[in-house]
């Protein structure tokens, strides 16, 4: 805690730099596409882990924040005709606002029950968005033609350029999160996770702290959702599926929670594994499952523990 340049932070930065440097090695578009997915899901996994690994709040419904971010961006850019920056702002707002709503609704509920509540709220939102709000969500069909950014005369339809942009955003996310974790608020959140009762007793308004955790996590999730919408140029309520919430949980835990490098590593491993396995075997799904089981048993602190050693907080 004393040093600013913790090993975890350095590794996370290193991963970002590695990603940013990828275009120097290859010019292959499909590689960038894969890397773009890794970048976006890394932001999402970091957002999820801010909630779970930092704030100690388990959620099975993070897909809702992610999807609302994607839709917020879509509405801002397609319906309101706003630019990329305003679109991202809208996405962040949508994610954060819904997270606050979830937090307010679930004020009296904690632990596993809160996790189940988030799952059910996300399901409820999914059903309403598919069946009752077709006009705004495109129903099962979703909305195609979500724009990518346009500024500085750069063609962001070139996957490389878009990749550079989102990799820079990932870098910004990593840095801001690190700063946030070391800030008074970050310390208060750490206190909330380690001992909520005591945090309340020494004078923290833990209810409000939980809302802060959720809204920050929701905001980052919304940002990630918007970037995915822009990458695919498509959004649909399938983003709300509980599988999305499950995926991000798996990725974050696989990599190692409560760290910055862990979620990024988890996402990278997950996506690369999927990519490599599915090109070699039809049964990649099952092999992925076995890999998870083995990792959970033998690397309970995540892949990142291999790099951080036993003393992971330093």
């Amino acid at each position, binding site marked *: 805690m004393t040093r600013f340049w913790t090993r975890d932070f350095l590794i996370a930065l290193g991963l970002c730099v590695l990603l940013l440097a990828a275009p120097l090695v290859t010019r292959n578009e499909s590689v960038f596409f894969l890397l773009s997915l890794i970048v976006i899901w890394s932001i999402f996994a970091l957002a999820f882990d801010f909630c779970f690994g930092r704030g100690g709040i388990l959620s099975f419904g993070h897909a809702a924040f992610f999807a609302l971010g994607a839709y917020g961006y879509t509405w801002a850019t397609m319906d309101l005709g706003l630019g990329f920056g305003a679109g991202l702002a809208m996405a962040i707002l949508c994610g954060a606002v819904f997270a606050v709503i979830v937090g307010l609704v679930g004020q009296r509920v904690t632990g*596993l029950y809160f996790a*189940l509540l988030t799952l059910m709220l996300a399901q409820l939102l999914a059903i309403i968005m598919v069946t009752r709000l077709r006009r705004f969500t495109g129903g099962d069909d979703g909305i195609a033609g979500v724009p990518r950014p346009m500024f500085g005369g750069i063609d962001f339809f070139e996957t490389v350029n878009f990749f550079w942009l989102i990799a820079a955003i990932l870098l910004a996310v990593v840095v801001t999160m690190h700063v946030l974790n070391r800030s008074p608020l970050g310390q208060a959140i750490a206190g909330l996770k380690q001992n909520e009762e005591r945090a309340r007793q020494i004078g923290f308004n833990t209810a409000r702290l939980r809302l802060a955790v959720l809204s920050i996590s929701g905001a980052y999730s919304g940002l990630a959702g918007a970037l995915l919408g822009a990458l695919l140029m498509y959004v649909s309520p399938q983003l709300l599926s509980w599988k999305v919430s499950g995926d991000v949980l798996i990725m974050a835990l696989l990599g190692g929670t409560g760290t910055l490098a862990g979620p990024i590593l988890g996402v990278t491993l997950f996506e690369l594994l999927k990519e490599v396995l599915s090109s070699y075997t039809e*049964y990649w799904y099952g092999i992925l499952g076995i890999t998870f089981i083995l990792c959970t048993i033998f690397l309970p602190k995540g892949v990142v523990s291999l790099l951080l050693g036993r003393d992971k907080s330093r």
Partner: protein
Amino acid sequence: MAIIVVGLSIGMLIFLLAAGLTLIFGMLQVINFAHGALYMLGAYLAYSVAMLTGSFWLTLVIVPLMLLVLGLVIERVTLRPIYDADHVYQVLITFGVVLVIDEVVRFFWGLSGRQFSPAAFLVGSIDIFGTEVSRYRVFVIVVGAIVMTALLLGIEKSRIGLTVKACSVNPDMAAALGIRVERVRMMVFAAGAGLAGFAGAIAGPMLPIQLQMGNAILLDCFTVIIIGGLGNIRGAIVAAFVVGMSRAVGQQWAAEWVDVFTYSLLVLVLLLKPEGLFSKKERTA
């Protein structure tokens, strides 16, 4: 009348699954996401057993036993090594088990769905008070009721039930009393898997046997165990009927609103009585 029979049969099927899920939660404090996959595997195995032996009744005996054994293996290989870790990791590992079971089913049975018929006298419909209802659904209700009674008696009256209760309420104390808690956990998980297999075999003639059947019913089971209270078997019984009947009644009058209604109810329960509608004990862990 048809509504009642349909509602009860849905409720019974969900109960068979939710009972295992809630028992496992009570004992292991783990939400077993693989429960739906076990149920699906049970249905496919039932198909194969029915094809091989030609007997519907044999499937109802053999399949639960097979799943029971599989449950023992799964518990021993995946959950036991990480008992002491955070429960989230145990949930995560059940996700992994889902992927593996899905793959196994795809490997052995392929992508196409299957079906098999129940014993001949269960085919078709019978007339009850002037309405025609499916014989098989009546059978499901009867069998479900028998299993339900047996479970209740087993848990609340028998020695085994007491042991299980002791272990789930206070494992350390139980261990101090000489109960082998690890073994009890394993047995409970296996029993839950066996029940899931039984549910799969029962569902075979009534619902299409296909790869995604487990996912579809799992959310219903979550609904039931949340409304009934996690770990509460009596609550699960009542909640299964509430869900089953509300499905049936809902479809009769407003099919489009059934899902919205169900999830709203769930959210309300989680907010107002997170320990479940039918649990007395205050629990907000």
